[in-house]
């Protein structure tokens, strides 16, 4: 706290040496006109989670730096998405700043024109600190934040890579090596499965919709692409069938019974109880896995990349951004807040608390920042995943329908459905929906 206070004063005085980071989140050499919008009141709508927590916890520093008052609320993810869409569609949202789930809302928000273009602000030295440049964001982040015309509509905030969690003790007990390829993973999973002892080789999302986030890891590694040049959906092609066969084998031969109804929560329960040896899911679960009050596998968890497929090795990537409602009357002030939320200092706090991974390379690449992360093995898996990241869902408006319909097809394969037939059926339902929404 103490050094933060010092540097905050320094920012105000404008005299401190460059490179010192303050509670405010900015290098002190940078001096946009922080106080220009003092007295403005901003409303922020956040999805409940570590990102929102991180913003709320340190928001006082922002107010002290800028004189801008911030009112923020955190709402559970699903409801937050609904509230945002309904309010934005009304044309008079109650908030200025909005937390965007890119993988669900990107196309919808772009097409409806709900977010303000901030490309101009980013080039304005009166508004932007020098270290906030496009090239500091990872490719996936920029892909999410920019629209087709190259305008920045939000700032990439936090990214989720999918990684492989494994139980070192179970691997050791059965003498199995950590798999490097998907084929090896199937063999390992079957070896690690022992229903008599109640332990299984693999666990992951089987529940419709949620399961898509797991499946796309396999799909991408089998060489699959979501859309062709004309925007047609491709997820029932031969790569999809192969990926689904793998998904079906893993979840029916080597996973706990009832996995068809598992979301991340049930999967995590099985993994933390030491009942499952491998789990592929988003990178944010290290804190609960290493929490002795909730987990029986503390200190026994290995963190590594999703194994490679025959056509490559990718980590399915999802992410959040923070943007400004196009209808906001306080866009510049709101921009200062967005900028602060993705600042290096805020990103460092997020990463070191294990609450998320910033999109900014300058955070991930900084050895000092890295040193402050307690779980180095986890950090390494995240850094390596960043290098092989690929968007985990097609960027189309009806993402939810896509996840529901194809997700239901995947779930159906778990009770014996044929992968090719189920995928075909799902796409027959999805294609007209996609056409309708994209032509509108």
């Amino acid at each position, binding site marked *: 706290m103490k050094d933060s206070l010092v540097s905050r004063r320094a920012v105000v005085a404008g005299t401190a040496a460059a490179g010192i980071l303050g509670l405010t989140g900015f290098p002190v050499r940078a001096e946009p006109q922080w106080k220009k919008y003092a007295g403005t009141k901003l409303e922020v709508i956040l999805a409940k989670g570590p990102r929102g927590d991180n913003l709320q916890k340190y928001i006082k520093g922002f107010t002290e730096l800028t004189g801008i008052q911030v009112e923020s609320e955190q709402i559970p993810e699903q409801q937050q998405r609904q509230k945002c869409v309904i309010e934005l569609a009304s044309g008079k949202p109650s908030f200025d700043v909005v937390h965007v789930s890119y993988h669900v809302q990107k196309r919808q*928000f772009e097409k*409806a024109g709900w977010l303000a273009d901030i490309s101009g602000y980013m080039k304005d030295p009166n508004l932007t600190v020098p270290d906030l440049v496009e090239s500091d964001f990872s490719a996936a982040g920029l892909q999410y934040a920019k629209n087709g015309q190259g305008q920045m509509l939000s700032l990439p905030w936090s990214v989720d890579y999918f990684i492989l969690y494994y139980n070192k003790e179970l691997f050791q007990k059965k003498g199995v090596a950590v798999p490097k390829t998907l084929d090896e993973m199937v063999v390992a999973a079957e070896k690690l499965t022992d229903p008599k002892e109640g332990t299984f080789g693999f666990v992951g999302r089987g529940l*419709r919709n949620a399961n898509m986030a797991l499946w796309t890891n396999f799909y991408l590694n089998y060489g699959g692409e979501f859309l062709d040049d004309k925007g047609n959906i491709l997820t029932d092609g031969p790569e999809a069938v192969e990926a689904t066969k793998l998904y079906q084998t893993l979840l029916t031969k080597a996973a706990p019974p009832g996995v*068809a*109804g598992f979301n991340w929560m049930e999967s995590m*329960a099985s993994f933390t109880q030491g009942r499952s040896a491998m789990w592929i899911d988003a990178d944010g679960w290290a804190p609960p896995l290493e929490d002795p009050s909730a987990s029986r596998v503390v200190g026994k968890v290995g963190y590594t990349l999703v194994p490679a497929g025959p056509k490559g090795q990718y980590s399915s990537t999802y992410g959040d951004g923070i943007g400004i409602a196009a209808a906001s009357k306080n866009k510049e002030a709101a921009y200062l807040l967005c900028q602060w939320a993705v600042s290096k200092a805020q990103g460092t706090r997020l990463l070191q608390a294990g609450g998320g991974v910033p999109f900014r390379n300058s955070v991930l690449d900084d050895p000092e920042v890295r040193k402050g992360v307690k779980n180095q093995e986890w950090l390494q898996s995240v850094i390596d995943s960043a290098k092989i990241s690929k968007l985990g869902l097609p960027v189309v408006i*009806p993402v939810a329908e896509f996840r529901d319909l194809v997700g*239901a097809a995947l779930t159906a394969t*778990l*009770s014996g459905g044929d992968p090719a037939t189920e995928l075909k059926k799902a796409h027959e339902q999805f294609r007209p929906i996609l056409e309708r929404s994209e032509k509108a």
Partner: protein
Amino acid sequence: MVPALVVVLAIIIFPWLFTIWMSLNEWKVGTPTTFVGLANFVRLPNDPRFVEAIGHTILYTALSVLLPLVFGTFAAVVFHQKFPGRGFLRGVFIMPMMATPVAIALVWTMMFHPQLGVLNYLLSLIGLPAQLWVFHPATVIPSLVLVETWQWTPLVMLIVLGGLAAIPAEPHESAQIDGASIWQAFRYITLPLITPFLFIAGMIRMIDAVKSFDIIFAITQGGPGSASETINLYLYSVAFIYYDLGYGSAIAVVFFILIVMLAAVLLYLRQRTVWTEIGGA
């Protein structure tokens, strides 16, 4: 009169007319709306998820009405007898009814867990194999109905108890003198006399079951796959996750018509029953 009319117009008639209007439009949040006539309704019979959802709704409703009726009537007959501690046990029996459905749903979700849940542990104690409960398409609806039954059997019991209290003692006494068995006395005396109460209980249960959302949503979200997706859940997805308000409204309109038809059938049956009872008396 006028204020009442205004209220009815504002909160019942207007939303309905507006829903019907929306159902005639291609109305997606964030895009311009266009009038499409009956196109949304034409989509419905060709939408396998909607057709499946109707089947799930009927099955779920039928089971959620029948089972609490059977168990509730049985419980009422038991609790109608005089025995020590009756008041206390009645109080305990109606406790599930007082709990919040979502809280119950979350507890049951863990109880259903195939590996960690207490239900499979209990089955193992009596030598039965583990079940998948809500985690398998074939057993998901009966498992959800189990939760409904557990929560709402007490309501049926309370209503039927009221009916039992109103039955005069004489018919039973004369039946006893004539040597009727317990079953005969129940079948030919108690049951006909409490039938009007059973209809009321059945109607309340039906209304509750057909619009059930919280328990299903919190436990399965309509899964696995779409095996427990009722019309209500599908409607919610279409309107508030896919933001397809036009199509969602069309589903709402059809759903409303189905409910009205069902209510009409029940009302008709009830009237007929009352008439028979009076005629027989």
